[in-house]
């Protein structure tokens, strides 16, 4: 049986409008379009006008998306100083260099660890919070506003706030942990051993509201009758979640996971501000940070561009695989 998306949409639309297939849509009092006679060049001119109309948008899209990508690829083939006008074509040398660069592999690993854990917990926390905030309770609107707070404040403010809270000398978190007798020594949250954990926690806090907002919007469109019918049939809350809620939100979940994966894998500001690339920050030197450092602290624009292209390629491959694995959700999403 063909799935809805596999069908030709035209017959369905025709059926809905109760008119014979193939008939053009016309306004009242107008002759059917098929019956009109047009001069031979009219069709061509009409197409040209259409093309000219969309040309500005097309040029903008090409200029703002394709050109930077193409330029990055070109740059990655050069040995180029970041601000001094010296460049030399080196072909794939930058890629060959990165293949043998331990810093690259470490950065890739840090990036994968960071993305995986932040996305996992953003989804769990975001969906859980959305389910709670979809229920009716006193002060729900206020709580809905408050939970969006982390997503609304600027990253620099969020990171400074967390660095204060997590500081091992005067941070409130350590103060409470010690006061409650949890541990004997203050934990060096921003030191080499725990900085990745701290970064993951800060990022989950900062970005789960996006998941919450997206899922909550979808939850509000699920017909209440489905839940009522399930209740009448004696379905437990867990069964209602797995059999009604989850299938209903899987489309948006697909999109949210895709977007968050792209954003977390390329996340720069939070990561950079937490560690600034060196000292303990070395242990959260993810690929975007490493690309930034190669470009603007090592001043090797070619290598920086090669790193950016590799990130882009990784994301494209992962997105294609993701779409392949979740074809049905992709259609709904």
């Amino acid at each position: 049986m063909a799935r809805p998306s596999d069908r030709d949409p035209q017959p369905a639309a025709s059926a809905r409008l109760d008119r014979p297939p193939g008939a053009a849509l016309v306004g009242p009092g107008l002759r059917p379009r098929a019956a009109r006679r047009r001069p031979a060049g009219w069709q061509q001119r009409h197409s040209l006008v259409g093309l000219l109309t969309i040309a500005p948008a097309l040029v903008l899209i090409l200029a703002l998306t394709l050109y930077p990508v193409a330029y990055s690829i070109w740059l990655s083939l050069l040995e180029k100083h970041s601000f001094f006008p010296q460049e030399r074509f080196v072909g794939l040398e930058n890629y060959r260099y990165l293949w043998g660069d331990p810093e690259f592999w470490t950065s890739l690993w840090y990036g994968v660890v960071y993305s995986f854990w932040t996305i996992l917990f953003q989804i769990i926390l975001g969906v859980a919070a959305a389910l709670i905030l979809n229920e009716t309770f006193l002060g729900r609107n206020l709580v809905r506003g408050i939970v969006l707070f982390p997503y609304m404040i600027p990253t620099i403010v969020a990171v400074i706030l967390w660095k204060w809270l997590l500081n091992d000398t005067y941070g409130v978190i350590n103060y409470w942990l010690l006061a409650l007798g949890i541990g004997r020594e203050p934990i060096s949250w921003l030191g080499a051993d725990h900085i990745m954990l701290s970064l993951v926690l800060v990022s989950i806090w900062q970005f789960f509201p996006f998941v919450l907002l997206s899922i909550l919007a979808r939850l509000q469109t699920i017909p209440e009758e489905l839940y009522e019918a399930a209740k009448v049939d004696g379905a437990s809350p867990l069964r209602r979640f797995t059999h009604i809620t989850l299938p209903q939100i899987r489309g948006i979940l697909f999109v949210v996971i895709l977007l968050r994966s792209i954003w977390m894998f390329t996340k720069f500001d939070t990561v950079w501000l937490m560690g600034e690339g060196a000292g303990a920050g070395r242990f959260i030197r993810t690929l975007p940070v490493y690309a930034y450092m190669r470009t603007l602290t090592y001043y090797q624009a070619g290598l920086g561009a090669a790193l950016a292209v590799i990130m882009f390629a990784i994301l494209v491959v992962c997105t294609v695989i993701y779409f392949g694995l979740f074809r049905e959700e992709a259609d709904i999403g």
Partner: protein
Amino acid sequence: MRRGALITCLAVILGMSASAWGGEKKVVRIWHTETEPQSVAAFQQIIQDFEKLHPDITVKQEALAWGDLEAKLTAALAAGAPPDASHGQAVTCASFYAKGLLRDQEDIAAAIGRDNIWEAVRRQCLHDGKYYGIPHSAATSLLIYRKDIFRQKGLKPPETWDDFIKVAEALMERDASGRVTRYGLSLPGVGLFINIAVGELTAANGGRLFDLRTGRPTFTEKQVIEVLDFYKKLNDTVLPPGWLGHGYLDTFANLATGKAAMLYQGYGRGAGYIEKYAPKEMANPEHFGVMVKPHGPSGKETAAQIDAEPWMIFKNAKYPEEAAEFLKFFFKEENYIKYLHTVPIHLLPTLKSVRANPAYQANAMVRKWKEWQDMQYRYFETGRAKPTLIVEWDDLRLPFGLEILGSGIVPDMVTDAVRGMPSAQAAAKAQARAEELITKLGYKRW
């Protein structure tokens, strides 16, 4: 009638637009690293006074964190939009000079008097006999310690690194359960500060970071490896476990609040922090003193780092000439003293005449924390203070200091060592990375 009114309106609008275009001001962008509110306010006052004399110029200041400056500056250069003038490290100034990006400042030097520039800071950005940068002020790193506890314990000033560790251990304090309540030392783990410390520790250990003739890094030499060993010992004995995640201000918070007994990378501005954050009865030089930094096992003399960013003017910026005019105005004594007094113990005068000026001397903090100022003058006058990553003044002729500073290679070397890698191996790894970077930049000469 209606048409007449319309024409009048149009004429007025056009006239206003024309006058706006005709009278467009030159906007001079100045970046600096004095972020404290009182410094920004004093700088703004100088700007306003300058603008009164030059109605066609608007000066816009931007105060940037010290550690962020080089990255932002080079990003702006890469984007083709540098500020007109900016602070920078001496190595930055040297790199930019080597790349032909800087306007010389001979006219500014002439305006303030070439001989009036303090000899100790003249070489910060002096290339081929010309000034390409004149420091906005002068300061050195300081070894700051809790003088009261030091005296209570009857300790002697350390002369060597081993002595220093013993003193730091003696200053540590534990509670009844054995938990450390005061660490012997606090160090910043930020990349820039590790670069600074490695430079001055190498100098204090009689070593070097680069071969002057070829420019080849010398990280695998004994003196540098001993620096890494010293870091390891500090890490294992007297530093807080999370020090690699501590910023510069964290270290002052640690000292002022009694969580640490010493700072190796303290600066004069710390006096202000101490006055602000330490208990009132303790916020004085009787409790927080400075002493001469010790030397390493292979060294014989102390060493400190010069914090005296030269002003740089970018010749490809929009208004370099106007920026030069502003800097001449900035260095006029009546303006300059206002600026120096915003952080009196840290911003020591670049101009000799100002040092002797009674208006400059008439400052309560300068009198109160004189010991701190004198220590800095001592480093300067004995020639034992050098800029970041510079062991010998001639190191400034190497054109890749900026790239080494920004790359994180030196901080990574220290991080590797304190995280357990044998010092020689960490040094060899850093050496290979630095050689590769210098080669890729096209500066290999060995």
